[in-house]
């Protein structure tokens, strides 16, 4: 089933408005709270991998859509309800904080910081490529127990007569701690690089809202490819590292510490499927595609901009000349 929502005042499409945090009609400025909709739903059925846009009737190939998208003909939201059922239904989501104009501004500011970024790349026209996406994430709360055994030494030295005395006290150290971690997030999409996604962190999870479909009106949302069972070991690995680092940092007051062994067990762990907001940007420059992502809640940008050879050369020459002259001066004085 493909659905979207119509305005009770004028019948145009309702979309989620980031600024107002409400469902909004761009045509007559009607607004309403975001909640599970009972009325005002337009729907059309999937027929053999094709469906009609509920607003304009245009025919779409279902393969080209994930959980939600936008009609290429009329711009209406398309929410594909059977793709978010059962374990595929997001439990919660963080709505966008950065709207298009804020994202543009944050992105241009980030571009300005790139000293080697080509001029063309900084032009405003490229901002048409920015698009908002809800990305699939797993978030996990867990309680872990870490037991660590270490040997530690405290060394002091002093002089007696013409002898140097080095005194070493040897200790056996043991720690057993329970630590709670919350909202450890891990992306569940194969197409998104785990390391890159981790760079977008942190998200502030106080902003989590219970998921209802109208949040997706006007946004592209992606379903996960990696289920809870696949992601759980990856989250555990990350949390285990956090816990052992924390326990290790509690061993203090020694000249040296050597960890003999440590073990971390998960006393409890749960996982929820959530959607997190990001602005996605794809840009072709001299035959190469560059991808950027911006945290849709904080504006943090991740991705490698292209390098302008001209600018790199200019910096190189500039620095070379300065260092060369300084080196000559210093060399002349010393040699």
């Amino acid at each position, binding site marked *: 089933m493909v659905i979207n929502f119509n305005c009770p005042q004028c019948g145009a499409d309702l979309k989620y408005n980031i600024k107002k945090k409400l469902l909004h009609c761009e045509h007559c400025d009607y607004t309403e709270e975001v909640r599970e909709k009972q009325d005002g739903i337009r729907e059309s059925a999937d027929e053999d991998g094709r469906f009609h846009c509920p607003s304009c009737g245009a025919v779409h190939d279902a393969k080209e859509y994930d959980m939600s998208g936008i009609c290429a003909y009329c711009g209406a939201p398309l929410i594909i309800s059977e793709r978010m059922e059962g374990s595929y239904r997001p439990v919660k989501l963080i709505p966008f904080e950065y709207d298009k104009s804020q994202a543009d501004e944050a992105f241009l500011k980030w571009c300005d910081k790139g000293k080697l970024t080509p001029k063309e790349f900084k032009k405003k026209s490229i901002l048409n490529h920015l698009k908002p996406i809800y990305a699939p994430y797993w978030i996990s709360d867990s309680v872990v127990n870490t037991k660590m055994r270490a040997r530690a030494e405290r060394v002091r030295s002093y002089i007696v007569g013409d002898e140097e005395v*080095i*005194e070493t006290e040897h200790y056996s150290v043991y720690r057993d*701690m329970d630590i709670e971690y919350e909202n450890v997030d891990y992306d569940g999409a194969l197409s998104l690089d785990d390391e890159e996604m981790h760079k977008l962190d942190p998200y502030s999870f106080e902003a989590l809202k219970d998921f209802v479909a109208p949040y997706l009106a006007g946004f592209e949302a992606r379903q996960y490819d990696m289920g809870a069972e696949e992601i759980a070991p990856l989250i555990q690995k990350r949390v285990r590292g956090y816990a052992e680092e924390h326990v290790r940092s509690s061993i203090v007051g020694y000249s040296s510490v050597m960890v003999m062994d440590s073990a971390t067990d998960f006393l409890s762990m749960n996982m929820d499927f959530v959607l997190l907001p990001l602005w996605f940007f794809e840009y072709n420059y001299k035959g190469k595609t560059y991808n950027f992502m911006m945290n849709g809640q904080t504006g943090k940008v991740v991705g490698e901009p292209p390098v302008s050879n001209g600018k790199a050369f200019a910096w190189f020459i500039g620095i070379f000349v300065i260092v060369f002259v300084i080196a000559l001066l210093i060399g002349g004085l010393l040699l």
Partner: protein
Amino acid sequence: MIFGSFRKLLTGLYILMITVFSAAAVTAASEQRVYDDAGLFSDSESRELEERIQELKAEQGIDFVVVTTDNTYGSSTRDYADDFYDNGGFGTGSDNAGVLYLIDMDNRQIYLSTCGQEPIRYLNDDTIQWIVGGEALRHVSEGDYYRSALSAIEDTAYYYEENKNSYENGGGSISPSPKGADNGFDLSATELGISGGIGVAAAGGAVGVMKANRGGKVTVTGHDYMKKGAVRINDQRDMFINRTIVRHRIRRDDDGGGHGGGFSSTHHSSGGVTHGGGGHGF
């Protein structure tokens, strides 16, 4: 002669590049002194070394640098240590006084490089051999790099202080002053070459850092995900096992000049800076 200059130039070039990269990894504000390029220390070990170095700097005013590497790009351990020190902008005072301890996994050598009037004077050849041939060597040959570095730092601090006192009490004669008299400004082809090389390296390194820093990095740590106040300590024991005591006789020099009177041999690094130092294979 020409070959020697060229080699020095190359060394300076490579090491400057490495220093620029290493130093750029940390913001200019923080005073990094541990450069574990060979990855021999754990994060916490690096942190502890940094802390100890800061303490000693505050207490005794000695600027320590600890460097590990698994690739010196063909240069000798000594050149690598000296150039790393010169290019890193370390040291205190107008003569950049300080000491660098290098664990060179490439040439399997440890090396202590001294720079500046006081370190070169107080850490004479005998003392340096004593330091790099002692605990520092024992630990490094056992594969305990952290304790090797720690021993090198502690021993250096200790003997430095000893010899300094010895000097100040009139026990030591002033060691020969560094060779190479200042004969004014003189542009030679070698100098042009070296300066050019340094310029190329610095510019290449800086542009390289600009390129490398484009992508953004992971900024969250475990603490960001820890629930507030949700750590329960079930058991926490620090049990004393035993105490070991090592004694050794402090060496007295036979020339009657006291402990600080030993000879400090010096040489010039590729950047033209005077260094003392000594090392030991492992």
